[in-house]
C-alpha cells in the first residue's frame, strides 16, 4: 500500500481518537462523548482509506459503505433495549465475518505469489481467517440462542469433547499446513471446513445464561481478527484498534466471569445448566409446597409497608414490564413507601443490561443500588419484590457447597422480612437450578407474566 504522510497522519489521528474514546467510554459522565469521539476516529480512518491513491472501484466501495451504514443504523434505531444482547452479538458476527473475508481474500492473493507476499501475510491471513470465522459462526449461533431460534439449553452428548478436539486439531493442523506448503489453497479450504463447525461447536454447548460472557469473548475475538488483517495489510490503525478491542474485551470477559465467581474455562466447557436437575425437594427428599398470594393481598401488603426493595431480573425484561414497575414504584412512593431497586451485576442477559432497561423506563438513577450497596439493607426491609429473577437471589450460592452457583455473589433478598416473587412458573432459571427461597415460609409466589402481574397489582393498588 502506498501511503503518504497524509494517510499516516490521518491513521495516527484515528488511533488516538479510538484510545481517547475508549477511555471516556469507561466512565458514566463521559461515556457518550467517548462513543462520539470513537466514531469520529472511524470517520477519519474510512475517509483517509477512501482517498488512498490507486484504489479502484471507488463508486462501488462508497455504495457498499452507504448500504451497510443505512442497514446498520436502521437496525440500531429499531431494536428494543431488551434485545441488546443479540444486537451486539449480530453486529459482532458481521465484524468477524468481514475480518474473515478480508483475510480469505488476502490469503488467496498471497497464494498466487507466496514469495512476494512473504510469510507475514500468509501467517496473519490464516490467523485472521480462523479467528474471524470462529467469531462469525459463534456469534450467529449466539444470536440463534438469544432469539430462541436455537435451544438455549447447552448441547451435550457423549463424545462432544472428542469431536471438538478433533475439529480443533484439524483446524490448527490445516492452518499450519497451509503456511508450510507456501500458501496452499487446498489446505486453506480444509481449514475453512474445520473452522466453521468448530465455531458453532464452541458456542452450542454453552447455556443461555452464559451467553453474555460468550459475546464478550467473541467481541475480543473479532478485535483480534481485525488486528490480524492489519498485519496482512500492513496497516497500523487496524492493528491498534483491533488489539484495543481484543485486550479490553478479554478484560471485560474476565470481569464478568468474576461477577459470577467462575472461571472462563468453566463457562466454556462445563456445560453449565445441563443435567443439574436438582429435584424440587428439600434436603430430606420431601417435596415442599410453595405459598401463593392473590393479587389483592399482595397489593394490600405492598401498600402498607415502609420499605420495599425491587429485584428485577430478565423475566421482567422479556415481559417488557419495566415501565409498569416504575409506575408501581412511583405509586408506592407517593404512599410513603421507601422504594429501592437492587441490581445484580449479571441481572439481565448482559452485565449492566438491567441498568439500561430501567433507564429506558425513566427509573431515577439514584434509586438503583448495586449488590454491595444494597445487601446490608435487606434485613431492615419489609418486603423484597422479586420480578423475574431467580439465580441471583438463590441462597444456595451462600450455603450449598454442592450447588453449581456456590460462591456466586447474590442479593440477600431472603433476609428481608417478607418476600414476594413474581414468576411465570416453577421452572428453574437459566442455570437450571432449584431455588429453595421459594419454599421459605416468609416467601409468597405471584404466578404470571411479569407485565400482567404488575398491571394487576397497579389496578388493585389504585382501587384501595
Amino acid at each position: 500500500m502506498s501511503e503518504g504522510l497524509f494517510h499516516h497522519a490521518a491513521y495516527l489521528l484515528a488511533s488516538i481518537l479510538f484510545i481517547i474514546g475508549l477511555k471516556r467510554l469507561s466512565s458514566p459522565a463521559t461515556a457518550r462523548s467517548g462513543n462520539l469521539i470513537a466514531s469520529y476516529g472511524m470517520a477519519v480512518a474510512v475517509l483517509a482509506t477512501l482517498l488512498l491513491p490507486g484504489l479502484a472501484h471507488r463508486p462501488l466501495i462508497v455504495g457498499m459503505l452507504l448500504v451497510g451504514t443505512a442497514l446498520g443504523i436502521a437496525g440500531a434505531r429499531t431494536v428494543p433495549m431488551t434485545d441488546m444482547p443479540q444486537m451486539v452479538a449480530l453486529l459482532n458476527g458481521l465484524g468477524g465475518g468481514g475480518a474473515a473475508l478480508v483475510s480469505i481474500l488476502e490469503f488467496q492473493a498471497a497464494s498466487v505469489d507466496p514469495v512476494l507476499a512473504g510469510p507475514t501475510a500468509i501467517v496473519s491471513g490464516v490467523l485472521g481467517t480462523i479467528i474471524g470465522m470462529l467469531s462469525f459462526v459463534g456469534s450467529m449461533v449466539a444470536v440463534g440462542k438469544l432469539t430462541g431460534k436455537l435451544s438455549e439449553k447447552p448441547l451435550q452428548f457423549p463424545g462432544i469433547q472428542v469431536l471438538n478436539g478433533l475439529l480443533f486439531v484439524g483446524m490448527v493442523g490445516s492452518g499450519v499446513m497451509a503456511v508450510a506448503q507456501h500458501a496452499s489453497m487446498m489446505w486453506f479450504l480444509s481449514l475453512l471446513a474445520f473452522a466453521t463447525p468448530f465455531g458453532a461447536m464452541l458456542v452450542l454447548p454453552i447455556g443461555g445464561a452464559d451467553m453474555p460472557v460468550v459475546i464478550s469473548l467473541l467481541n475480543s475475538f473479532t478485535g483480534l481478527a481485525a488486528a490480524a488483517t492489519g498485519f496482512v495489510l500492513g496497516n497500523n490503525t487496524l492493528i491498534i484498534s483491533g488489539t484495543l478491542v481484543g485486550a479490553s474485551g478479554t478484560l471485560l470477559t474476565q470481569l464478568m466471569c468474576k461477577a459470577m465467581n467462575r472461571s472462563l474455562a468453566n463457562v466454556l466447557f462445563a456445560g453449565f445448566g445441563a443435567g443439574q436437575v436438582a429435584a424440587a425437594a428439600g434436603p430430606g427428599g420431601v417435596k415442599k409446597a410453595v405459598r401463593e398470594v392473590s393479587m389483592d393481598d399482595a397489593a394490600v401488603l405492598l401498600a402498607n409497608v415502609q420499605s420495599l426493595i425491587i429485584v428485577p431480573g430478565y423475566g421482567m425484561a422479556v415481559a417488557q414490564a419495566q415501565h409498569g414497575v416504575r409506575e408501581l414504584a412511583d405509586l408506592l412512593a407517593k404512599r410513603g413507601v421507601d422504594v429501592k431497586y437492587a441490581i445484580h451485576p449479571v441481572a439481565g442477559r448482559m452485565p449492566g443490561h438491567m441498568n439500561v432497561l430501567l433507564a429506558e423506563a425513566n427509573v431515577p438513577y439514584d434509586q438503583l443500588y448495586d449488590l454491595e450497596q444494597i445487601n446490608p439493607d435487606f434485613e431492615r426491609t419489609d418486603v423484597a419484590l422479586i420480578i423475574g429473577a431467580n439465580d441471583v437471589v438463590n441462597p444456595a450460592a451462600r450455603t450449598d457447597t454442592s450447588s453449581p452457583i456456590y460462591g456466586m455473589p447474590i442479593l440477600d433478598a431472603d433476609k428481608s422480612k417478607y418476600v414476594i416473587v413474581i414468576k411465570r412458573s416453577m421452572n428453574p432459571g437459566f442455570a437450571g437450578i432449584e431455588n429453595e427461597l421459594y419454599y421459605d415460609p416468609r416467601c409468597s409466589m405471584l404466578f404470571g407474566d411479569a407485565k400482567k402481574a404488575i398491571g394487576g397489582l397497579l389496578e388493585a393498588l389504585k382501587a384501595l
Partner: protein
Amino acid sequence: MNGALLAELYVFVLAIFVGIEVISKVPVVLHTPLMSGTNAIHGIVVVGGILVLGHATTMLEMVLGCTAVAFGAMNLSGGFFVTDRMLEMFKKKPSDKKAAADKLAADRREKDRRAGERRS
C-alpha cells in the same frame, strides 16, 4: 525478520497494554454500552474491506470484497448508533449532579437514623 513487521509487533504489544489500561476501572453499569462501543470500534475491518475491494480484479474478489465492506459498515454504524441510544438514556435524568448530591444527603440521613436506632 524485517523492520516493518518488528514495528507492527511493537505496536501490537503496546496496544494490548493500552487496551487493558483504559478500561481497567469500568463500573458494571457501563458494561453493556462498553461492550457495544468496543464492538463498534472493531468495525474498523471496513478499512481492510475497502483496501481489498479497491484492489479486486476477479468476480469472486469483488463479491467477497463488497460483502466485507457492507459487513464492516453495518458493524460500525449499528454499533456506534446503538451505543449512543443506550448512553442517551443514562444522560437524560434531571441533572446527574443534583441526583448524586440528593443521594448523598439521603444516605447521610439514613446513616444518622440508623445510628439513632442503635442508640435507642
